[in-house]
Structure formats: C-alpha cells, structure tokens
C-alpha cells in the first residue's frame, strides 16, 4: 500500500515563529488531507488538497503531486497551534479508497 512519511516528528517553536511541516507519499494520490489533533484528541480538518495551494488565515498548504509531497505552513504560531498534525492520503490505484495516515508531527508552541 501507499506509504506516508511526515517530518519532522517533533517540533518546538517559540510563539510567533513560522514553521513548515512536510508530508512525502510513495505513489500518486486522489486525496490528501491535513488534520490537526488538539490536546483533547479532536481531529480537525485543515485542508483537502490533492494538488495546488490553499490558504486559510495563518495556515497554508501546497501539494506538488508530481513530486509526491505536500507542505503545511504555519505562520506567526500561537500556543493554540500545539498538537499533532497529520497528513493522510488515498492512493490513485484501482480500488483505492482507504485514507492512509502518516505518523504525524507533534508541534509544541511555547509562550
């Protein structure tokens, strides 16, 4: 099946700093989503972005499908950005439908 690797596994930032999280995937995809899991466990959908660039406030994401990676940018980080960020994909192979998750990047924003 498709493999998803996220980097870095852990990241500590000072409040106000910017960061880039990376997601590499091993095959072409029909579906790519970024999620934020807050400290209470809630998974929040950030972006549906199988290709192209999207922005939502301080967050933006870019997926370069031909090179099999996606980037999540967080600008002017806040303590509420802390948590684990997951990238999840569905491969484009015949019959593929399962959302495969990476292991996540744990972000800690300190005041």
């Amino acid at each position, binding site marked *: 099946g498709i493999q998803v690797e996220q980097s870095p596994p852990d990241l500590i930032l000072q409040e106000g700093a910017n960061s880039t999280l990376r997601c590499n995937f091993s095959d072409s995809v029909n*579906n790519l989503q970024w*999620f934020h899991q807050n400290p209470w466990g809630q998974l929040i*959908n950030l972006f549906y972005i199988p290709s192209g660039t999207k922005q939502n406030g301080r967050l933006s994401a870019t997926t370069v499908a031909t090179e099999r990676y996606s980037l999540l940018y967080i600008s002017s980080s806040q303590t509420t950005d802390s948590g684990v960020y997951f990238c999840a994909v569905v491969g484009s192979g015949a019959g*593929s439908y*399962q*959302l495969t998750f990476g292991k996540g990047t744990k972000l800690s924003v300190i005041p």
Partner: protein
Amino acid sequence: SQTIHQWPATLVQPVGSPLSLECTVEGTSNPNLYWYRQAAGRGLQLLFYSVGIGQISSEVPQNLSASRPQDRQFILSSKKLLLSDSGFYLCAWGRGPLSTDTQYFGPGTRLTVL
C-alpha cells in the same frame, strides 16, 4: 451545518466485557461513515466503513464488529473485550466517493480495558 457526536467520551471496561460505542451525524443524509482506532497517541487505523444502511466493510480482522441500523447512526461493538482493544476510537463522516471523500471526525471515545 453538520455535526458528529460520539458517546461515551471515556470508558473503562474489564477484559471480557461487551462494548458498544455509538456515533451519530446530524445535518446530512446518506453519509459515508468510518470507524478508526488510534493507539499510543499517533497513527490512525481504519477499522470499518459504511456507504449505507446495513452495508459494512471491515478493514482489519479483529475482535470488533460494526453496524449501521439507521442512516446516520454507526455502532462499534465487541462481545468480549481484550486488553489490546484499548485505544482512542474515532468516528468520521464524509459525502463524496470513497477515494476523494473529505472526512470529518467526531470527538472520539477513549477506551481503557483493564
């Protein structure tokens, strides 16, 4: 707007006891429904998905089963819990074709089996 509910929020059960976790979605009809398990704080594993009432697909052979008795209700069950069933169980819903479905997650149930 759509809302997804799960209950209970937390559960502590002895080994060998039965389990029933419930998930309901409001504000949409005929959603795709999904059960995931997250162990050790990272990595989600798809357990079951359903594209309609009574239609359940299982991804991983295990001690669990799922049912969809109503359009917007998805239930995860076990007859006898094992220690390895402990984890964080998340229900999700979506509306699109499975391969391009944008999935939205519920608040989760944290299960501890002792």
